[in-house]
């Protein structure tokens, strides 16, 4: 059934369709609409979940961890400062293999205080063990909540998953969304049945103190789970495409890459505008293509190396800075392409929620193409930014 809804509404519908058992919640802009919609579903009897109005995001993730450990399917949502406040608990949940799904509405992390889209919130927790997927539109936001539970609860993975959606650009913007049927979601996503949980019938001790002799093995196991998620994400993407008719490509998606000479790697909503720009530049005879980086964890090293091989140059869009020179996507892509000779340039734009326009994206392609021709360009480019760096 098609509905014209905001991204937050789409995410809330996803949680409802997944029959989340427990939803601990705390308000933060621009995520708040998600928990408000869920509160409505619960109070109207449309969703049979324990909705917990916690007193902070730290407590949200604490309650989420404990509920998940006790065998419940747990959903929540946060943003920016809220995610930062949860930092400690994110690191506690992943190695304990608790398959929580939490939507993150990407928002700039203070200072300075702001409420619009930037990726410096979720990028800061990329080493927590949580899987991260960045979505492009409201349909993908809803669909990825459903896929996230399948990925998270897969016995080969058992990790928490964070679908990330651009604050305001998606969270507060209405788009037509095809809402899946409950029975289709029920057969796609079976009930959560963990092997180990807090149950007096078979008591388990979770989160027990660990001496130095054992922690390294546990880290490697968590790494193994992140690695095996790559295969699982592909399988689930294909199955989802068969059942629901929408194929997102898995770890990455590509556009006009078959004969491309220069490509731009994008994340989130900027991808849609970039696709239009690719069409425009193609019409003008420029052989350009687009790679949509969907999953940041696991990081699609092999997929990117394959997609970006043989190009004259690669441009990487980043919506946050890592104070390391470039953005996190740029740094990780350079690392992924290690040993390949293709020049990689970084395009920083949209930071703090500034619009990323068609003109800026054309400029990104122009700089990237120049780099491909061996012309001297800046490695890191701050687009549409006033003043000088120093």
């Amino acid at each position, binding site marked *: 059934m098609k509905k014209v809804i905001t991204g937050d509404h789409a995410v809330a519908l996803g949680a409802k369709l997944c029959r989340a058992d427990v939803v*601990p919640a705390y308000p933060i802009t621009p995520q708040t609409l998600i928990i408000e919609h869920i509160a409505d579903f619960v109070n109207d009897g449309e969703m049979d979940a324990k909705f917990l109005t916690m007193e902070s995001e730290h407590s949200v993730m*604490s309650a989420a961890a*404990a*509920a998940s450990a006790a065998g419940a399917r747990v959903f929540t949502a946060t943003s920016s400062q809220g995610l930062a406040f949860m930092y400690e608990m994110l690191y506690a949940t992943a190695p304990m293999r608790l398959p929580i799904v939490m939507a993150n509405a990407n928002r700039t992390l203070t200072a300075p205080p702001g409420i619009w889209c930037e990726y410096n919130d979720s990028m800061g927790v990329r080493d927590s063990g949580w899987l991260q997927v960045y979505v492009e539109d409201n349909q993908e936001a809803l669909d990825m909540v459903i896929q996230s539970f399948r990925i998270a609860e897969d016995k080969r993975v058992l990790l928490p998953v964070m679908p990330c959606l651009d604050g305001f650009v998606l969270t507060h913007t209405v788009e037509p969304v095809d809402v899946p049927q409950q029975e289709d979601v029920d057969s796609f996503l079976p009930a959560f049945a963990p092997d180990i949980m807090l*149950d*007096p019938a078979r008591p388990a*001790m979770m989160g027990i*103190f660990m001496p130095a002799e054992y922690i390294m093995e546990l880290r490697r196991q968590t790494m193994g789970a992140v690695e095996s998620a790559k295969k699982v994400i592909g399988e689930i993407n294909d199955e989802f495409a068969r059942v629901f008719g929408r194929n997102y490509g898995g770890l990455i998606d590509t556009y006009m890459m078959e004969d491309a000479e220069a490509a731009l790697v994008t994340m989130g909503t900027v991808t849609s505008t970039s696709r239009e720009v690719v069409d425009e530049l193609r019409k003008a005879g420029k052989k350009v293509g687009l790679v949509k980086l969907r999953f940041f964890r696991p990081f699609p090293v092999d997929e990117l190396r394959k997609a970006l091989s043989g190009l004259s140059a690669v441009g990487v869009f980043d919506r946050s800075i890592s104070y390391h020179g470039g953005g996190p996507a740029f740094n990780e892509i350079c690392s992924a392409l290690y040993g390949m000779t293709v020049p990689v340039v970084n395009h920083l734009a949209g930071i703090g929620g500034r619009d990323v326009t068609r003109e800026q994206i054309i400029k990104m392609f122009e700089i990237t193409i120049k780099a491909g021709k061996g012309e001297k360009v800046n490695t890191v480019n701050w687009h549409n930014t006033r003043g000088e760096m120093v």
Partner: protein
Amino acid sequence: MITIKELPDENLFTAGHTACPGCGVAMSIRNAIRVLGKDTSVYVPASCAVVFGTTFPYGAWKVPFFHTAFENTGACITGMQAAFEKKGKKVTAVGFAGDGGTYDIGLQSMSGAAERNEDVIYICLDNEAYMNTGIQRSGGTPFGAWTTTTPVGTKVQGNRRFKKNLGEIVAAHEIPYYATLSIGHPLDFIRKVEKAKNIKGFRFLHMFTPCIPGWKMDPAKTVEVTKRAVESGMWTLYEVENGEKKITFKPGKMKSVRDYLMMQGRFRHMSDEDIKKLQMWVCKKWNLHYKEKGAPEVCEIVPPEEHHAVTEEHREMHGP
């Protein structure tokens, strides 16, 4: 009402844990969990109890055990209980947090769970300082006490603030049950745990748990020191049920706080002036708890032990 004889034999917190000899926390956990029984799921925040109760690959718990962080006991038992309720399981989530984890870093999370009246049991094991990190002052540390962050210096000696009145804070949430307990009073102890077990809503059990290295005391005196604490008024045994406060054990005559202090190295440095200050605080507390309406205020001091001479100041304060 359950009696000591009727206490189940099976220890759900088993021997083999690595707590110090005479640990008040271990004793309290073992006895509380025996009364609470098998259908209990435990959360323990960062504390000695995590380390001595579970160190991989060993564990002393025969009920489900969960630990993640320090400041989130209220939230974790909330989430756990929500899962059990959603799954239709008759299990009670119980948190065992220390004084640091309750008075200080965990106050917000505890308050949230109390205000929502979550159907859980919150147990505060109050040993009056951060013991797991090596004896640092908390909001539960009494006046005068030495800790590593309230050292006995040439300028300042020991903790300069009085113990936070946590009971009033917790009870102000208008929860169904708040009680103070002491392992020196086992009948009162098990009666309160059993009572809490059978009440619905947020229940808070506040346990007074001596720490041998932190209090610098004889490990054989754990029970005795809690008795002295109650006799002096440093710890009071009461319960607040649906807003009604009831004293559950009233000691006979008030004993000098000095007797209690001198059992513990953490107080041994205290000047007569500081002891007097603490005594005044204790008298106020004593009268608040035990004075009947219309009765005169009490601040009788049993003469201190011989090796502590009665000072002029003392006489002025309490008469000859």
